[in-house]
């Protein structure tokens, strides 16, 4: 997979200028997305993962600004230098997006057909009749029964899972090269979650598109992503392929996240939780942003921000003491074995 990346995010900084001060929601984020792969971005709420995805499409609300020096290179073009008109031709066409709550992400006063056809008519040179046929095809493809009938229904007439399928149909109607899925299954029942993720995988195989899968659910990432970016406090803490990160995490935060997943194979009295709370983005700790919650931290951590370093091939970690995590891991593995 060592090709040119489809999307390169470089030193992305997105600041919100509020009355209380500057919120550095995303503060120097780098990652690449390659054609046809799924990149998972995982982190707690407030880690900057959603802001990152909105920044790629330049859909931040007016208070949020992408700072000078940030670069978002898509297909060789820096999206941040495009005009609003050029950007509009990319949205929904080359890069599409689906959101968390299909209930509120679909416009309640238009039929799902209207909303899918709108995307088709905006980006493709077809007439209304053809667009309607294409919309019906898309609905069939995402597994909506009786698409000829359902196309004229309003969002409130569909179930949550069906709505998310309609949302996916809309996003994929112009065959985008990149699909950004922001918590696509969080609002759905667990059984429906699996169906929707399976559907996304199938369509990815068929269309060969890349997916950025944003979620706080480590399990979803583990099963669906090829590579993972762990975000915390607006910064990338760790990134590598999914197996490496989840088998041998090197950042204390990733380690904490993985430990807080309930496990059925070992007996646990209490589920682990990372101590403390997500810091207020107006008052991030000086030095490493995780320092005030970190079990492995030393004095140095609250003074200096550790750099993101490549500790193994294609495995980057932002921690001075990552070897402590390695040791802790060995110990706990040994403990399990005993």
């Amino acid at each position: 997979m060592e090709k040119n990346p489809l999307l390169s995010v470089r030193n992305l900084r997105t600041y919100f200028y509020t009355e209380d001060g500057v919120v550095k929601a995303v503060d120097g984020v780098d990652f690449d997305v390659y054609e046809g792969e799924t990149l998972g971005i995982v982190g707690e709420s407030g880690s900057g993962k959603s802001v990152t995805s909105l920044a790629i499409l330049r859909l931040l609300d007016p208070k949020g600004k992408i700072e000078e020096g940030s670069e978002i290179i898509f297909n060789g073009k820096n999206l941040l230098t495009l005009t609003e008109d050029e950007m509009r031709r990319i949205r929904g066409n080359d890069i599409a997006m689906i959101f968390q709550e299909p209930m509120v992400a679909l416009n309640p006063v238009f039929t799902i057909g209207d909303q899918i056809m709108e995307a088709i008519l905006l980006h493709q040179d077809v007439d209304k009749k053809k667009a309607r046929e294409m919309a019906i095809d898309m609905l069939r493809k995402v597994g909506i029964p009786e698409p000829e009938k359902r196309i004229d229904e309003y969002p409130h007439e569909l179930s949550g899972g069906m709505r998310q399928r309609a949302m996916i149909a809309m996003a994929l109607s112009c065959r985008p090269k990149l699909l950004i899925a922001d918590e696509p299954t969080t609002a759905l029942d667990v059984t429906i979650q699996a169906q929707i993720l399976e559907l996304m995988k199938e369509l990815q195989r068929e269309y060969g598109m890349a997916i950025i899968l944003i979620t706080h659910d480590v399990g979803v990432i583990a099963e669906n992503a090829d590579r993972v970016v762990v975000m915390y406090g607006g910064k990338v803490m760790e990134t590598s392929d999914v197996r490496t990160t989840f088998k041998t995490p090197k950042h204390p935060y990733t380690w904490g996240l993985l430990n807080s997943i309930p496990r059925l194979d070992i007996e646990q009295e209490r589920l682990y939780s990372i101590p403390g709370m997500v810091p207020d983005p107006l008052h991030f700790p000086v030095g490493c942003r995780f320092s005030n919650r970190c079990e492995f931290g030393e004095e140095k951590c609250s003074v200096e921000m550790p750099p993101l370093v490549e500790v193994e091939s294609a495995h980057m970690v932002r921690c001075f003491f990552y070897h402590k995590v390695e040791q802790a891991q060995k110990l706990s593995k040994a403990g399990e074995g005993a």
Partner: protein
Amino acid sequence: MTTFIIRRLLLLPLIVLGVSLIIFSLFQILGPDKLLAAYVNPNVFDKLSSEELEVLKEKYGLTKPFAERYGIWLWNALKGDLGWSQVGKDAVLKSILSRFPYTLELALYALIPVVGVGIWLGVAAAVHRDKFLDQFIRIFAIVGWSFPDFVFGLLILMVFYSVLGWFPPGTLSQWAEEIVKSESFHKITHLVSIDALLNGRLDVFWDALRHIIGPVITLSFLWWAYLLRITRSSMLEVLSKEYVRTARAKGVSEHDVIHKHAQRNAMIPVVTVAGNMVIGLLSGTVIIEVIFNRTGIGRLAADAAVQLDYATVLGTTLFYSIVLVLGNLIIDILYAVFDPRVRLG
């Protein structure tokens, strides 16, 4: 939908019955002499002798018990006879019907500036939130909202009539009135300005227009305020909704995002407010009619109330309740048109 409309229309007689019963009983504090006025043509009332009056009191059952009197009134009302209007100097029904076209005309002319511009300003304010345009519109709205209508009406009259001489009070000038009343002027819609156009009398049309502009400006300025505030807050709420972001993520242009995706949703609460404004306009606007010396149903009702002309009060109240019920029915239907989630039934 059809059953919903039928059910609502079936409510109408019940409401009318209730309203009439209340007004009718309130007026029973008046003596039989005063009540008799409702049954006698006002043009001959003063010429009657006291013996003749006694005979009439007997004839109309004014000395009979309440239930019987109400029964007589109701029976006559059902036959379309609402009695005589002392204020209107004619039968009550005729008095109402002859004034309603003036009220309707003012309502129609005020509708476009009041509703159209009000919504337009509200959307503009929301889109330019906290910018200069928004601040300007909001100050404008607060001023309009806090201005008493009689003060603003008088100001308009002072500036545009006394000083500039553009928009005179009244309904028509003397000469135009004569043309309208003449045999050769065909009354087709009973709306003066439209009839003038249909008769090919541009001069009369222009005269009617000059007389209606003052009240329209007054109504607009005062009523915009409310509508634009509702529209602005509704629009702001909708603009922060996720489906607006979805539309942008699809590549929809900013114009369509605002005027198609957002506005359609923002109109849902506005329909109720705008609908109630139209009902208010159709019920007549007493103060505007008095200040601008216009004929209209609001003034008829107010004069009747002041003079204890109970037949006219009853008649206009019944008219209001019919306008209100039908108006609300139309609002509910429009509601369902704007919001597919609403099912009438």
